[in-house]
C-alpha cells in the first residue's frame, strides 16, 4: 500500500476510486456487474448473515453469474435481519429483509436473473447527506 503523503494524494486516490465505482454502476457499461451487500453487524451475523453470504457467493458462482458479494455494516433494519442489498447494473439498489437461504435462492432466481421483484422488499426510508 502506498502512503498518502498529502491532501492531493488523497484527492487523487479518491477520484480514482470514485471513477471505478461509477463505471461499475452504470448500466451501459459492459463491465458492470451485479453487486450484493450483506449487512454483517452483530445482529446480522447472529441471524445468519454469514451463512447467507456464503450461500450467495457459492450459488452465484455455480450459476456463473458475475457478481460481487461484499459485507457492510448495519443498515438499520434490525427487525428484518439478515438483510441484503442488491444492485443490478443501472438500477436503484433494492434491500431485501429476512433473507434465509430459501429467499436468497428466490432473489437470485427472480430478481437477479429475471428482474422480478419478490415480496418483502425494505423501502429505504432515510436520506443520507449525499442526497
Amino acid at each position, binding site marked *: 500500500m502506498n502512503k498518502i503523503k498529502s491532501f492531493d494524494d*488523497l484527492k487523487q486516490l479518491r477520484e480514482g*476510486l470514485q471513477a471505478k465505482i461509477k463505471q461499475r454502476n452504470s448500466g451501459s457499461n459492459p463491465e458492470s456487474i451485479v453487486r450484493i451487500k450483506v449487512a454483517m453487524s452483530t445482529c446480522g451475523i447472529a441471524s445468519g448473515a454469514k451463512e447467507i453470504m456464503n450461500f450467495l457467493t457459492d450459488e452465484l458462482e455455480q450459476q456463473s453469474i458475475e457478481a460481487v458479494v461484499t459485507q457492510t455494516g448495519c443498515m438499520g433494519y434490525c427487525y428484518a435481519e439478515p438483510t441484503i442489498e442488491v444492485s443490478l447494473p443501472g438500477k436503484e439498489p433494492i434491500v431485501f429483509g429476512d433473507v434465509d437461504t430459501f429467499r436468497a435462492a428466490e432473489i437470485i432466481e427472480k430478481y437477479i436473473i429475471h428482474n422480478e421483484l419478490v415480496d418483502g*422488499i425494505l*423501502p429505504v426510508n432515510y436520506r443520507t*447527506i449525499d442526497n
Partner: protein
Amino acid sequence: MADYRMHLLVCGGTGCKSSESEQIRDNLLAEVERYGLNDEVQVVMTGCFGFCGKGPIVKVLPDNTFYVLVKPEDAATIVEEHVVMGRKVNDLLYLDPESDEPISDSKQMDFHKKQVRIALRNCGVINPENIDEYIARDGYAALATCLSEKSPQQVINEIKLSGQRGRGGGGFPTGLKWEITSKSQADQKYVVCNADEGDPGAFMDRSILEGDPHSVIEAMAICGYCTGSTKGLVYIRAEYPLAIQRLKTAIHQAREYGLLGDVIFGTTFSFDITLRYGAGAFVCGEETALIHSMEGLRGEPTFKPPFPSESGYLGKPTTVNNVETLASIPVIINKGAAFFNSIGTEKSKGTKVFALAGKINNVGLIEVPMGTTLREVIFDIGGGIKGGKKFKSVQTGGPSGGCLTNSFLDTPIDYDNLIAAGSMMGSGGMIVMDEDDCMVSIAKFYLEFTLDESCGKCTPCRIGNKRLYEILDKITKGLGTEEDLTRLRSLCNVIKDTSLCGLGQTSPNPILSTLDNFYDEYLAHVRDHKCPAGQCKSLVKYSIDNEKCTGCTLCFRNCPVGAITGEKRSPHFIDNAICIKCGVCYDKCKFDAVSVS
C-alpha cells in the same frame, strides 16, 4: 418470460396490513390480470415504508409515484389510470404539508427527511473493512482539510459554530470541550473515544464501529490536531468482539496509508490510536470512571472538577468523546458548520441516532433530526406497536431516563425537552412499551440494573438504590402501602441530590417518571393489590373458564411445571400452588379460555 416494465409495491408493514393492504394487493393483482398485464406489471408486498400515519401506501416503480391512504377500492383506479393510461391519480398523491400541492415523485417528499443519516452515513453502505470505500465517500478529506488548511482554533470554532453537543447523554458542547483541552498546558494530552456503550437497549455505537470505524478514527485524529494530543485511546466494551475486530482492521489500514502515525499528510502532526477494553461495568461510561478503568483501576468515579479536559488519563488533559459524537465530526468539517447547524432545534443541533426496540414493529437503528417528535419516530418510522397493541410508554435515556406517556408523543425530541419531560436523551436507546407492561415492574427492572452496576462508592447510590429496589419489590408483591409511595419519592429526590456521579444522580429517574406519569398504576398495586398490566406475578392468578375450555389439552401439554390437570375433551384446571405464572397457557389457548386476574 416476464420482463416487467412496472412494479406496484404495496406496503406490507404491520400498520398497513391492519388497514387492509393485503386486500389492496389482491385487488391490484385482479385488476392487472383483468387488463392482461401479468407479464408487464408485477405486484409485490414490501416491508414497512415508515410512513404509517399515511398508510396503506402503494408505490409505483420506476417513476417513484407514491400513493397514500389507499383503500382496496382504489386498486381499480390505480391500474386503470396509472398503469394503463399512464396518468397519475392525483387524489391519492401525498400533499405537501406546506404548499398543499400534490407531490408525485416520492424523492421530492419530506417523508424522506424524517431520517437524515449523518453519523450513520456509511453504515450499510460501505464495506467497513475496506478503507478505499471510506475514502471514496470523502473519507479522511476532513482530516486533510484541517491539517492543510485550518489552524486548530479554526477547527474548534467550526465545531463550536455547528452547535454539536455530546451524544453520550450529558449534551456538553463538543467544541467547548475541545477548547478546554487545547488550552490546558501539558507535555502529553489524550483523546479518548468512549465506546463503552452500556445502556441496556442501546446499540448505536456498536453499529457505527461495526459499520463505519474509519469515521471515528478520522474524528479522533482531528480532535488530536485541535487539542494538541498525539495519542488516542478507544475504550471499548469487551462484549463487542466484532466492533473490536473491525476497529483493529481499520486502524491497521489507516496506518498503512499513513493516515495514522507520524507526519500525517506530510505535516508535523502525529497521531496514533490504541484500544482499551471495558470489562463489564456500566459505570465506566462515566468519564472519570472510564479513565480510572483505563489506568487499570476499579472503575469508580471521582468528583468533578477537575474535569478530564484538564486532568484526565494519567493526570493529563484528556478529551473524552462518545462514538456518535465523533462519527459526525468529519461531516461538520466537510459540509461546514452551517449545514449541521441548519438541522435540529434551537439548542440541539444536528441529528440523533436512536436504537428503537421493545414492543415496536420496526426494531432498528434510525437517525433523525433533533426536533422530530416521538410520535414520528414510533409510529412513522417505527411502524407502530407490535401485535396491534396499545402504546403505553416510551423509555428514553436507559437507566438514567424516564418513561414518557401518550401526552409527550408530540414533544419534539431534544436534550432540553426530554429533561423537562422527566427523562433524558441518554445515549439513544428508545424502548417502546405496550399495555402489557407494568410500569412498576419496569421501574423495578431499571433499579435492579442500577443496583447491579452501582460502584458502591457513595452512600445514596449504594444503600439508597437498594432501599428503593426493596420498596418497589414490596409493591410488586402486593405488600406496599401508600406511605411507601411517599417514601419512595422522598428517597428518590435525596439520591438525585446527593449522589457522587451521574449514575446515582439519575438512577431514580425511572421511578420518578413512572410515579409522575403512571401514579394510578402504583395506587392500584398498593391500594387494591392489583397489577393492571397483569405482569406482577404475585398479584395475578391464571384460571380456566369451564365454559370456554374445550379440553384440547394444548395448555396441559405446554405447561412447564405440570400445574394444569384435566381429561381430554373436558375442562382443565390450574393448580395455583404449582403455577409459576409463566403465562404460556394464556398465550397458547386458542379459545380464550385462560384468563388473568
